């Protein structure tokens, strides 16, 4: 079985001379909730549209469930539920008719599936309303219901919480977590609301100006973002040895340019500076860092993805 359910290899999407996506290598593993982070115009929707088959790559390759090629991708898409950009409906059809229409299209004759989807996404009371009368939040829910038809193994959702009210956002978050944990559905969702993504995602991809600048797991990101003391030293290797000897329980990581970060330090900062000075290691800089996901993203953008 392929490790990645969604994978892009050096994907380029060009509109004339403008590169909307520039050699993107995305990797979504089975069971993950993958948060695709990027500003407006970063290329998130473009990437998801390529996955959905709404547009075509200029260069590179898309693999879904390890398969590639036009026919194979079409077949693989049957196992994926997509909600990309604004969900599309026939304005004069009712919510129930719309779901029935898409159930027929997916070859699901069981009308109970429609009820199930209506209840799951919380739009049961709107079943007889025409789609054109729905609020933005209700349209999002209907879009999710359509994506959920046929019990997909993967959900691809573009800005799914747009237009939802605070309680809707909370419900939606619970729904995603429930689908992921109970039904083992892999979820790829894009958003520029980082706090919301932070609450559900297990993996992150940072997209900036069409370039996927980093993919990082939630755990690794947490480590990176958690409180740490950053010390710039004259001899970082020697200091690391001293750390191992004196404070073996501490977690630290060495970075380029004689930089060492001690994560969640268990002692006051002075203890670490004393350790250096007592062993003839000069400290040229020292600071305490606390990074939010927003800060991390901004920093990443500034550095252009260089770690």
């Amino acid at each position, binding site marked *: 079985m392929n490790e990645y359910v969604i994978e892009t290899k050096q994907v380029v999407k060009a509109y004339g001379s403008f590169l909307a996506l520039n050699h993107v290598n995305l990797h979504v593993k089975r069971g993950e909730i993958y948060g695709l982070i990027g500003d407006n115009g970063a290329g998130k929707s473009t990437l998801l549209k390529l996955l959905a088959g709404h547009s075509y790559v200029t260069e590179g390759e898309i693999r879904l469930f390890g398969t590639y090629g036009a026919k194979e991708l079409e077949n693989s898409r049957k196992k994926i539920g997509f909600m990309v950009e604004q969900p599309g409906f026939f304005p004069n059809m009712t919510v129930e008719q719309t779901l029935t*229409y898409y159930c027929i299209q997916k070859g699901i004759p069981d009308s109970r599936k429609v009820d199930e989807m209506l209840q799951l996404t919380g739009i049961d009371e709107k079943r007889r309303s025409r789609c054109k009368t729905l609020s933005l939040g209700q349209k999002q829910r209907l879009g999710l219901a359509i994506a959920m038809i046929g019990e997909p193994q993967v959900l691809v959702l573009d800005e799914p919480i747009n237009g939802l009210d605070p309680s809707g956002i909370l419900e939606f978050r619970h729904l995603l977590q429930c689908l992921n944990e109970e039904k083992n559905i892999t979820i790829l969702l894009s958003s520029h609301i980082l706090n919301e993504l932070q609450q559900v995602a297990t993996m992150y991809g940072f997209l900036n100006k069409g370039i996927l600048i980093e993919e990082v797991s939630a755990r690794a990101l947490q480590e990176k973002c958690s409180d740490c003391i950053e010390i710039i030293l004259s001899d970082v290797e020697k200091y690391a040895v001293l750390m191992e000897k004196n404070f073996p329980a501490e977690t630290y990581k060495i970075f380029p340019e004689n930089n060492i970060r001690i994560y969640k330090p268990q002692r006051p900062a002075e203890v670490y500076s004393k350790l250096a000075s007592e062993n003839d290691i000069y400290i040229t800089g020292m600071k305490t860092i606390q990074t939010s996901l927003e800060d991390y993203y901004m920093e990443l953008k500034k550095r252009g993805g260089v770690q």
Partner: protein
Amino acid sequence: MMNYIKSEFYRIFHGREIYRFIITLALLAFSFNAVLAWFRRMDDFPYGITSHSYSNLVASPLIFGLMGAIVGMILYEGNRRNGNLKNTVAFGISRTKIFISECIVTTIISLISMVIILAVYIGSAVMLLEQAGPVELNDLLTEVPAVFLIAVACLISGIVCIEAFGKSSTGIIIWTVIWFIFPKIFFYLGLRVDVLYDIAMWMPSNFFGMSGMTVNMSQCITAWETVGGMIKCLISGALGTIVSLAAGILLLRKREL
């Protein structure tokens, strides 16, 4: 593809558009014959006969094509704007299959519409008007198979135009140019270049209009009354259908949504 066709029938029969279209045209057809009958009762009105009523359709065969294109446009005009196609493509159905399914669905719906509207038209003519004149029911009934493939070509090209171009109005203008302006251009160029004239005379609006088809109150000579004429209608329609289908597949298969 079968699932997509089934879902489209579900959508069409649960919508109002096609019912409105059929009811409106059936009412117009009935009203037209009713007005003719009413005028005939008031004075010595010469047009209150079945021949005149039938001649409206027999003299303008492309009206069937126009109606087919309108049905296609009614059914698929909002497809791109509403974003429904995005869901269908994301379900893993190829654009080519979607397009071919749309053509099949529109052809069947157009056929059903035509049968109902023609039944009302002929029925009301027979009931309300005097059966007289050179144009007979047979001329109208033989017109249906003669123009069937041409109408299919018209409706397929209608779907292509409405879906391939961003604005519906642009699609309608291009469809009109293809079916009415291009043949005229070819015809006039054909007056100078023989090859172009031969091509022009395979175009329906030219061979219906300029190949000696005469339908009026004194005579009825149709393009399809001879075996040769009927075959020409069928070949022209088949070519038009193939060209429209090929153009649709080429234009729509790589279209960005």
